[in-house]
Structures are given as C-alpha cells and as structure tokens.
C-alpha cells in the first residue's frame, strides 16, 4: 500500500512535471515564433504531406528508426491509391479552374502525390539543403 501511494505520488508529480515542462516549452516556442513574424499560409494538404514524407525519409536513416512495412490503404498498395487520388484531385482542380479561373503561383496539388519512396530518394539528394555559412 505504501508502494501504491508512492507510485501514485510519482505519477502525479511525474506527469505534472512533464506537462509543466512541455507547457513551458510551448510558451517559449510561441514567443520565439512571434519574434520571427513569418507569415502563415494555408497550403494544400498534398503538398504538406509530401513535405512531411520528405522529413520522415531523412529520419529513417537514424539508428532505431524502423523502416516500416510497405504502406497499404484498405489493402491496396499505396502507390495505386496515390495514382487514383491524383486523378481525382486533378479532376476537382479542373472543375474548380473552370468555375473561377485566376492566376496562382502554383496549383494546389501541382507537386502531385509523391510516394514515400520517391520522396525518400529526393530527400536523400537534398539532405544538405541548408546553405553553408550565413
């Protein structure tokens, strides 16, 4: 019982501290980001996803980062799904473009859906993308 009490105390203190510390981190990050004054922009989910895949692909090289099983969507290979998806999105885009044509710097979805393996290859090519020095 004494042990249980100690355990509960640990849990409360521990989770409390973890939340407190990460909450503080949240606050600090928010301040730092405010100083940055970079604008936010809503971007297409497809582009975001491709970017996320790129980041994940770099991290895959870490020791202890499992290279996962080949992705499937409802049992279909992810590549096939991606192809279908791109076709669908393209169709939507065409409809939207016909409805209200206007100039954009790039079309949503223009980067298409790069499969993880493609993204991975690209990421490896561009790993050292940070310009050196200033």
């Amino acid at each position, binding site marked *: 019982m004494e*042990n*249980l009490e*100690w*355990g509960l105390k*640990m*849990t409360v*203190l*521990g*989770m409390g*501290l*973890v*939340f407190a*510390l*990460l*909450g*503080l*981190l*949240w606050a600090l*990050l*928010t301040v*730092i*980001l405010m100083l*940055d004054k*970079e*604008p*936010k*922009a*809503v*971007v297409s*989910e497809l582009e*975001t*996803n491709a*970017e*996320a895949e790129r*980041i*994940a692909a770099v*991290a*895959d090289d*870490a*020791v*202890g*980062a*499992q*290279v*996962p*099983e080949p*992705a*499937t*969507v*409802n049992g279909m290979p992810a590549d096939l*799904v991606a192809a*279908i*998806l791109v076709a*669908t*999105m393209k169709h939507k885009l065409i409809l939207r473009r016909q409805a209200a044509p206007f100039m954009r710097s790039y079309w949503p979805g223009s980067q298409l859906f790069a499969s993880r393996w493609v993204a991975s290859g690209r990421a490896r090519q561009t790993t*050292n993308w*940070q*310009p*050196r*020095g200033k």
Partner: protein
Amino acid sequence: MIDQETIGLLMKGVNNVTWQSLVMIGVSFVLFYLAIVKDYEPLLLLPIGAGCMLANLPLSPLMDDTGMLKILYGMGVENELYPLFVFIGIGALTDFGPLLENPKFVLLGAAGQFGIFLTLILALLMGFTQPEAASIGIIGAIDGPTSIYVSGLLAPHMLGPITVAAYSYMSLVPIIMPPVIYALTTKRERLIRMPYSQRKISRRTRIMFPIVVTVMVGTLVPFATPLIGMLMLGNLMKESGAVERLTKASSNEIANTVTLLLGLAIGSTMGGADFLKTSTLFILVLGLLAFCVDCAAGVLFAKFINLITGGNTVNPIIGAAGISAFPMAARVCQRVAQDEDFENFLLMHAMGANAAGQVASVVAGGVLLALMGAGG
C-alpha cells in the same frame, strides 16, 4: 600419453553447458529470427542476439574480466556513453520543423508518457523494487536510448530484457497502434480533417530551438541534461548547416559503430541466471502494456482537447503519435486516417506530435531520474 586430466580439461567446455545457457542460446536464436526474418530493429536486435549467444557459450572468455564483451560493456554501457552517442545521431536526423509549425502539439507528446507511470505502479504492485519499477516504466517511453540510459542507472541487472522490450515494441508500432486507435475513436472522429497553415520556420528559429530546449530542460531537470543535451546537440549541428562533416559523422560512422558495440554489450548482460526469471516475463508484458497505455492516453488527450475547445479541430488519431518512435508512429497514424478516408492527410500534424513525443520521452526520463533521486 593422453591422461585423465587432459581429457577432463578438454571436455571442460561441454561439461559447463547448463540448461540455462542452452535456453539463452535459444533466446538469441529468437532474437536473430526477429531481426533477420521479421525485420524488427535488426540494427539493435541482431547484435544483441550475438552478444547473448556469445555470453552464454560455456566458459566464454569474452565474459572474463578482461573479455571483449565485458570491456565493451564498461566502455559505453556502464558509463552511459553509447546511448548518449546514439542520441547525437538521432538528433542529427530529426527535423523538428513540424513541431515548430504547430507548437501546441507538445502537449500530445506529454500525454504520450502516461504509460510510464501507470506501468510503474503496476510493477510496484507486482513486487518489483522502486528503481526496478521505474526502469520497467521507462519502456513506456518507447525510446531505446532513454530506456538504456535510465535503467542503466536505476537497475542495470534488468538492462537486457528492458532494452529488448524497448526496441521490439518500437518495431511493433504498426501492429499495436491501430487497434488501440480503433478501440478508442469513433469513425466520425477518425474522419476529422485538419487544415494546415504552413509557416516558414526561419533558420534562426531552427537553430534557437535546440539551444532553448537544452537550457530550459537542463536547468529545470538537471538529470535530463545528458539525454536532452545530446539529442539537441545533434539537432543543433544539423540545423546550423556549418558542420556537415560532424553531422554526417554523428549520424553515420559514430552511430553505426556505437550501435554495434551497444548491441553486443547489452546482449552480454543476458546471462541465464539473470534473464530466466518470471520477472523477465513480467517486464515484457508490462512494457507492452506501457506502450498501449501511451497510445491510449494520447488519443484520449486529443479527444479531451476537442472537448475543451468545443470543436472538432484535432483528429484523435494523431494523439497516438505522441511517442518517440519517430517517424514511424506518425506514419502509422497517417495510414489509419487514410484507411477511413484516403483524402485525409494528417502526416504533418502527426509528425509534430511525434517530434513532441521524442522530446517528451527524454524529459520524462529525466523527470523519472529526478524523482528517484529525490524520491522515496
């Protein structure tokens, strides 16, 4: 000419085979199977299996006081050098951008550490000592180096099973997470889409992040300084862009060498007498439970946010990503979301939660050490 004594000495090896050593060699075969055939974290489990096999061969000179495995253990496990080096490499390959774009996700990472403490309580109730219970709990960080670091300090005699559990369960992410998510979410919840506001993260912020985290966590939880310091050192080297040679060395040459030595040394702790106890089974079971509780806590916390904010802004699936298995946990979340609606893209959000989970599990490890030092 060949006298009794000589024959006795020649048969020494065979005479010293014990059933425990045979079983442990069998265990090493299981590890080889998991590593090679099932592809479970082979970089760790294969060397661990080899270390286990070599340590359990009869009269193994590798386990003498001056034996290679003992030396490798002293070189980096006893003094915690190996897991810290591994962390430099992990930091050098982790992009905290997704977290910086959505800093509120840090809280999901915090929630994902709940399994640590629940398991600690259960382990206590099962009769483990306090340091042992804390070491078992840390499996719930689902973070190999943190588990090795913490249990190496608190309960080095349980290093073998804890490490094996930590790395095995990291590999089981794609198998364990989906059922937990399905059990705790409704289809409607899983269909929630999360629009994405991209924010360009300046290079300055990317460089400040590892520094700020190190100073903040290191000051508030000194016990976490080594872990968080090395993770963030790797990240600082990467984001600075000024020391590519060192970044590359940390994530390649150093990481590979240390991983091999670490695996062999950890494997060598798996002697029959220490490993073949019911406690080992408990450790494995409790560790698995810790992992499930982590996922569940993350999902429930995400639902709790929705409840508080009164909207359906967070897809609870990404709550499960608040653990440190980066980036696999995020990918599994994306897959679960896509299984419901293949136009639902949560990956970037899940990566944010996942990066938070990486930081949070290190923080949790430090907090645990602090409380144990404070503790009792």
